[in-house]
């Protein structure tokens, strides 16, 4: 197993973006709050009456929204890092022929491909989680100063009501369901990366586009396109309980139209997700695609 951790380390050495993209995104967001301190304090003073009138639940929503906003922003950028990485990782080693060095080590092709999958499914989500929490807390510290300057007690309005464990539980759940849901997409990109001689982007995109087009021409339907769309964003309605439960507090600000959720942990709704055939079919397809990627890396005839 320690061998597997070395493979992960090796990926992080080569692909620094996994580390610095979340750092840059998080740092920029905190920097914006620091730079616009004057404006934020003025806005807090302006809304002083409204904020003091908020109930406990509503104050808690401020914290959840804050962490959530960091998680969403960092996850968004990390998605690009992961997609580019998956398309590149088994292709670049063939282009620069370093695959011959990697294959001279006693590491199986299965282990190698799984280490790259683990970067997308485990390492990237962990980094998103850790950096969202780190920068979220850093932002809270900045806001502590802002609240104090605006005459609002930071403990009373910010830290006290925060539901940190519920929020962490929510984030963990969110990254896990997302990784499981996206698994077949990741596996497809890895297979393309292992297989394509060049133009990995085209290889990744063209086959699905052709299938969609053929379906449209032959049957005049769009089932496959719907499946792809579901696969990209469909996990949210499936795995989370939005609005309908009534047990979560939603603050609606009429002026800005922002909705905040206080108890993020109550959005967790694994029942429909786990019982959805789409999840399990996706996992099976993903596993087949990964097996194919391992097979291609194993038996592809590389020129020495």
């Amino acid at each position, binding site marked *: 197993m*320690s*061998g597997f*951790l*070395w*493979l992960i*380390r*090796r990926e992080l*050495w*080569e692909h620094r973006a996994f580390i610095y993209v979340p750092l840059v995104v998080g740092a920029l967001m905190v920097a914006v709050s620091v730079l616009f301190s004057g404006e934020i304090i003025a806005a807090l003073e302006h809304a002083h009456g409204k904020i003091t009138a908020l109930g406990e639940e509503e104050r808690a929503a401020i914290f959840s929204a804050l962490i959530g906003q960091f998680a969403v922003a960092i996850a968004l950028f990390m998605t690009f890092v992961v997609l580019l990485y998956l398309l590149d990782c088994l292709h670049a*080693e063939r282009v*620069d*022929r*370093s*695959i*011959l*060095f*990697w*294959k*001279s*080590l*006693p*590491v*199986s*092709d299965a*282990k190698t491909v799984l280490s790259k999958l683990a970067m997308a499914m485990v390492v990237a989500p962990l980094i998103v989680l850790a950096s969202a929490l780190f920068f979220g807390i850093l932002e809270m510290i900045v806001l502590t100063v802002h609240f104090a300057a605006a005459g609002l007690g930071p403990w009373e309005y910010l830290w006290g009501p925060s539901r940190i464990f519920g929020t962490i539980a929510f984030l963990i759940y969110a990254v896990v369901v997302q990784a499981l849901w996206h698994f077949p997409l990741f596996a497809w990109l890895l297979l393309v990366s292992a297989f394509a001689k060049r133009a990995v982007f085209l290889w990744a995109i063209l086959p699905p586009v052709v299938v969609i087009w053929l379906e449209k021409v032959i049957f005049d339907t769009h089932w496959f396109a719907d499946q792809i769309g579901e696969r990209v964003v469909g996990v949210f309605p499936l795995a989370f309980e939005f609005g309908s439960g009534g047990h979560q507090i939603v603050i609606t600000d009429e002026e800005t139209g922002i909705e905040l959720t206080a108890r993020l942990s109550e959005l967790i709704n694994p029942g429909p997700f786990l019982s959805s055939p789409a999840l399990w079919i996706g996992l099976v397809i993903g596993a087949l695609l990964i097996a194919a990627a391992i097979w291609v890396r*194993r*038996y592809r*005839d*590389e*020129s*020495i």
Partner: protein
Amino acid sequence: MAALIEARGLCKRYGATAALDNTSFSIEAGRIVGLIGPNGAGKTTALKAILGLTPFEGGLSVLGRDPRRERHELMQDVCFIADVAVLPRWIKVQQVLDMADGVHPKFNKGKAKQFLSRTDIPMTAKVKTLSKGMVTQLHLALVMAIDARLLVLDEPTIGLDIIYRKEFYSSLLNDYFDEERTILVTTHQVEEIQNVLTDLLFINRGRIVLDCSMDEVAERYTEVLVGPEKIEQARALGPIYEQDTFGRKVLLFEAVGRAELEQLGEARRPSISDLFVAKVKGGRA
């Protein structure tokens, strides 16, 4: 002891051309074998088959394993240097040592460091900042620190200047090779390894055209410098190859008595390259 590598009837085609055409050979432990052939003769394909890098037909056992199914287990006891370009360019010297230490049970990091300390390679440098010669030194340091039984070298010194080339083979011989280990090497520069090799394998068009030890070469093959007056007499003995040098003919004989040949002119042991040309041209005729 059973052969280290046992190949029986290897076949591999790329489209219409046969890279390996029912090729059979075996390599004993403790030898330094030169696999020599013209471009496209099947050298590289044979090495790839041995290393489990390509599918093929036929029977092949390397250290008692089938490289098609057991590549990664095999790599615990087999090292290879394909050529100087394959170390990943982004990796740092320190990282490549750490990585090898982490995943290779027979890698000795201290040994590799000791070897590197004799070079000008800094531990913090990235491979892409090193010269070609340094990359080869680094790769050699990695390989020499692995307690492997078989080392496969495919054109290991290509593109290197003469100093690095000399150092490369002297390091291998002095610091690495012993009777427990086996080295299989391909190269175009036959001259620079002919004093290193213990065995020769000539391959042409996917077939082995010569398989013998260097001692057998000396016994079996004789080169004779023949003056014009004895040339017909010499030709009657059936030379396998004939070439001109400075007005005299150089004839290469296989399995002809030394005493008889010495009557014709100055007899000597042929160089590997002359033997190679004779065997390969003979095969083409």
